[in-house]
């Protein structure tokens, strides 16, 4: 996030796009509602009528995957009607002329056909967005989980820069991250192209620094494989050994049947986890790990805040902290690692090697933690990035972007769109929440959410078991007839193995990030005989 959660309740205008905030980030959602009660304007852009629509001034129920087209049309209006922040664009950004040329192709009338939003509404929305400054934009996986995920993200950034809303309090582009430490895993360099603190592996200087710190002669200079490529290469034989730490890939990845074939193909699969999962079934070795409250350590949240995690209980049986397991493995290759606790790892390695976290030490994390960049011991941390429109790269880059439809669109055989996401009461594949007393009582099984009109047309009752089929597979699941989804849309989650949406989802990926298109594929529903 460019900004902080503390901004939410104080915001003057909030744009929620592709985020079901009250279910996926409930506490963040409460602050959005507080802002509305305090008089803020709220715009909700989503294919589904989420709970936040009850609080919204404008609800834009766009067609699944039409985000780029809609945002281009909004920018078309902002530029045509001279409503954009010219001063900001001139002094803080570059690429305006290319952007202008591109968005001129996206008239509200043309985009109305793509997005299902009328030209008048698009104009009204653009004018509303320009009427209040600053506006804060939040998004979640509705933006990223498309084959054009990167384009969607850049479109959000384009819009906010054009409105002059980046680099100010209560503004910015704010992706809310789905997992407690997905930000931290990125920050720590659990990515194929960067060391901790986003230092490129291709950069010789960065490599020399880490070679010295890690006491090795050389480090690989070529960026590695992203996860979908790794998995694909399990079947080609290019990847022989696969190490899965705390992921339940057999349920979380699109097209489960194929994913299981990939896992099955691993010559040697190591799983390190706290529970047996659908994925550990394929392992050759399973290593039992300490869990959340059994470690001292740190998480980094969406707002780049490094927070402490503290030990409250001991791991069961012989389970060990994950950092210890890696240290012990390294030892078997002749590498003696000095750090012998999470604090030593952070204080003596991470914060020494990552300049953006150089000022973060455990001693400073007793209270509310610190938000990176925090380059020195006396730096207070950074709640808002790009302050004053001064971007990390200098000028903010406006990018001309074209709309592309989802890879698989409805046709005669599979006439409906399946979109997926998360529900309030469970988390991912329920390895954790499924084992908490009371939680399964609140949500005990998966449903396929469908519109009243579709249910009526097919004679489907609420709660009736139906069949949902895609080109990849089929599931039997209860229908939940709801006003949340529009006609033609089926919406599901992947919390339950039975009825998991990922038996159906399409394994196609954004070409840059290799993020899968969980948000759109073609399905059909059938009544069970």
């Amino acid at each position, binding site marked *: 996030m460019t900004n902080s959660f503390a901004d939410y309740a104080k915001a003057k205008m909030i744009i929620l796009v592709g985020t079901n905030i009250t279910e996926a980030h409930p506490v963040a959602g409460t602050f959005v509602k507080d802002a509305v009660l305090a008089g803020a304007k709220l715009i909700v852009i989503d294919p589904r009528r989420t709970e936040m629509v009850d609080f919204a001034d404008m609800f834009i129920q766009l067609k699944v995957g039409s985000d780029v087209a809609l945002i281009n049309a909004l920018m078309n209006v902002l530029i045509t009607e001279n409503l954009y922040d010219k001063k900001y664009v001139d002094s803080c950004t570059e690429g305006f002329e290319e952007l202008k040329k591109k968005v001129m192709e996206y008239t509200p009338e043309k985009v109305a056909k793509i997005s299902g939003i009328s030209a008048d509404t698009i104009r009204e929305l653009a004018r509303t967005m320009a009427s209040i400054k600053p506006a804060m934009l939040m998004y979640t996986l509705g933006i990223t989980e498309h084959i054009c995920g990167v384009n969607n993200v850049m479109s959000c950034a384009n819009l906010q820069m054009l409105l002059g809303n980046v680099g100010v309090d209560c503004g910015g582009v704010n992706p809310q991250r789905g997992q407690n430490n997905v930000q931290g895993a990125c920050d720590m360099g*659990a990515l194929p192209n960067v060391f901790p603190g986003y230092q490129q592996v291709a950069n010789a200087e960065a490599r020399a620094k880490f070679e010295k710190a890690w006491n090795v002669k050389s480090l690989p200079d070529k960026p590695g494989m*992203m996860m979908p490529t790794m998995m694909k290469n399990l079947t080609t034989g290019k990847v022989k050994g696969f190490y899965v730490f705390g992921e339940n890939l057999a349920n979380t990845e699109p097209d489960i049947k194929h994913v299981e074939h990939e896992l099955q193909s691993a010559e040697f699969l190591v799983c390190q986890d706290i529970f047996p999962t659908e994925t550990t079934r394929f392992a050759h070795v399973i290593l039992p790990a300490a869990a*959340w409250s059994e470690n001292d350590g740190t998480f980094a949240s969406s707002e780049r805040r*490094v927070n402490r995690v503290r030990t409250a209980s001991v791991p069961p049986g012989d389970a060990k902290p994950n950092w210890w397991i890696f240290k012990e493995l390294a030892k078997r290759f002749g590498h003696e690692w000095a750090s012998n606790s999470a604090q030593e790892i952070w204080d003596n390695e991470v914060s020494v090697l990552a300049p953006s976290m150089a000022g973060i030490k455990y001693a400073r994390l007793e209270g509310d933690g610190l938000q990176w960049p925090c380059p020195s011991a006396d730096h207070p941390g950074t709640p808002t990035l790009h302050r004053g429109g001064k971007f990390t790269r200098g000028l903010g880059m406006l990018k001309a972007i074209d709309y592309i439809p989802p890879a698989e669109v409805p046709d005669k055989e599979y006439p409906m769109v399946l979109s997926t996401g998360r529900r309030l009461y469970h988390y991912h594949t329920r390895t*954790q929440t499924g084992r908490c007393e009371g939680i399964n009582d609140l949500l005990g099984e998966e449903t396929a959410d469908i519109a009243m009109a579709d249910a009526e047309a097919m004679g489907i009752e609420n709660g009736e078991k139906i069949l949902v089929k895609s080109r990849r597979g089929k599931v039997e699941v209860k229908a939940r007839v709801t006003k949340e989804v529009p006609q033609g849309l089926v919406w599901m989650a992947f919390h339950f193995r039975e009825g998991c949406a990922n038996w159906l989802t399409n394994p196609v990926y954004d070409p840059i990030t290799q993020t899968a298109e969980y948000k759109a594929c073609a399905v059909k529903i059938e009544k069970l005989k």
Partner: protein
Amino acid sequence: MSDTFILNGKETPFKQGQMILDAAKNGGIEIPTLCYLKGSAPTGACRVCCVEVKGARSLVAACSTPVTPGMEVTTDSQAVHTARKLNIELLLSAGKHNCITCEANGDCRLQDLAYFYKITAPRFAESEQRYPTEDVNPLIVRDFSRCILCGRCVQACNEVVVNRAISQGYRGKKSKVVTGGDKAYNDEISECVFCGQCVQVCPVGALTEKKAKGLGRPWETQKIRTTCPYCGVGCQQLLHVKDGKIIKVTAVEDAQPNQGRLCVKGRFAYDFIYSEERLKTPLIREKNGEFREASWDEALDLVATKFKEIIKKDGPDAIAGVSCARSINEDSYQMQKFFRAVIGTNNIDHCART
């Protein structure tokens, strides 16, 4: 021009619009409260914060009375103390407040105030119980016999987390905090999302965590601050730990980013760590496909041997790994270091992209 008022005989500054409660606090005088909930519109329901204002017909509630220039406020007169004590005695008689059996014993505002005002015996007869305890929902016990109708839960639900699930229902002696249609929290038509904010703000034992029942008294537990293991907001939690076991979770008040709030998962989904299904020992798959228990040395030696074989035969890029986006930073750091410095590949990723 800075405005002033007279607080216990002393000229004290205040800001326009400020309530007596806040202005007094700035002036160094702490007025006791019960129903007052920071960040919500004051209701003046409990009258525990009553103070004397010169010229007023009766005592006024400090939480909901704005200060005016020159106002003379007395917070510690006999009349004030007598009234506060009476109000507490009335609250005590309005329900069952037998502390021995109450989950909130030791963490109860009413108990604290009764103690402070030296109330030793009930002054009024205890009202009969009108509503049975709601025990059907899986997470929150609603004991109406202990409810003092202070309204904090209603304010928290409507003004803080804005889930709008509960409100003040019925009138007079029949008053009750109700969901829409006066159904259980988990009823189909209830709007409750089990964030438990009502429990967090309940000053007595009317709303308590079901899973924590009978597991430990507040003075027996250690409170450990930590970060929630679910979504990416990073809510700050207090783990209430007794004998090395988490018995309940509450939100850290006044902490960033959650400011005393949690959701259903943050507050109630902590006990997976005690599941009997936890992996407790390394496991190695036998030729017949069955897993058998192994020592750490055996399991780690096997991983190292296999990886060395693969590196020798196919090179380091034939090994790949995904790290965990739920585990701590230090674990991800170690894993990428292991892959880069030890295996010699950049084939390290995690689930951020999926």
